[in-house]
């Protein structure tokens, strides 16, 4: 539960969403990621750290460079959290449909 809340906070930030979008296209080094933003290297590095802590990004060492990869499994977890909400409405609407198919107008 604690970890999940962090994931939601992670994607709530527009810069972090932009980082995810970049890295989802191809694995990148921290400096290559930072080049895409006006913010300081430190700011971007902090964002990358948060994304890594919630497992949205994964590190991989290639020689002397660290590359960041996107972790689609974690993203799916986020998509899945809407599912209970959708189910709640689907159950209500199924009831509605069943009731109205038998509905007799009063009067």
């Amino acid at each position: 539960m604690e970890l999940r809340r962090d994931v939601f906070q992670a994607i709530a930030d527009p810069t972090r969403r932009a980082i995810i979008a970049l890295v989802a296209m191809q694995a990148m080094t921290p400096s290559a990621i930072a080049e895409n933003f006006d913010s300081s290297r430190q700011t971007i590095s902090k964002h990358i750290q948060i994304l890594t802590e919630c497992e949205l990004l994964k590190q991989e060492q290639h020689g002397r460079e660290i590359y960041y990869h996107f972790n689609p499994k974690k993203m799916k977890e986020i998509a899945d959290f809407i599912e209970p909400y959708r189910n709640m409405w689907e159950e209500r609407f199924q009831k509605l449909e069943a009731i109205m198919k038998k509905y007799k107008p009063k009067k």
Partner: protein
Amino acid sequence: MERKTQVTAGNGQQDIIITREFELPVALLFKAYEDPEVVAQWMGTKVIKLENKKHGGYQFETSDPQGNVVFRANGVIHSFVPDKNITRTFEMENGFGAQLEFLDFEALTDDTSKLTIQSIYRSNAARDEQLKLPFAFGLNMAHNRLQEIVSKLK
């Protein structure tokens, strides 16, 4: 199973769009929102008040089997056009704040219809809290169930 109900919650947005197609004429679909007895049945809540008119109010209340009120919601109706649309506010009486709802009813054929609900929240954060409610509730339920099983083991 076919996923009839669709929920769209864009990243960083502050609204939720719910769409559903029904094997019902649009008049019957609308009736399900108009008739308090029917609303009570499919929403699973008691309908205390439902004034289907401009500036009308409505109020829902749900009790647990012991009779304790567990859920209370209310709102004001801004527009009520039979078989077409309802515009209303909705607020749960637990401090979540009000949301604005646009309900559009549309005939697809003589026997089928479509409902589109757009709910607008005060902020992106408020919307996400709302979305997470059934999710968090599901987790709580699982947790309670687990506790129940564990307590029986002792």
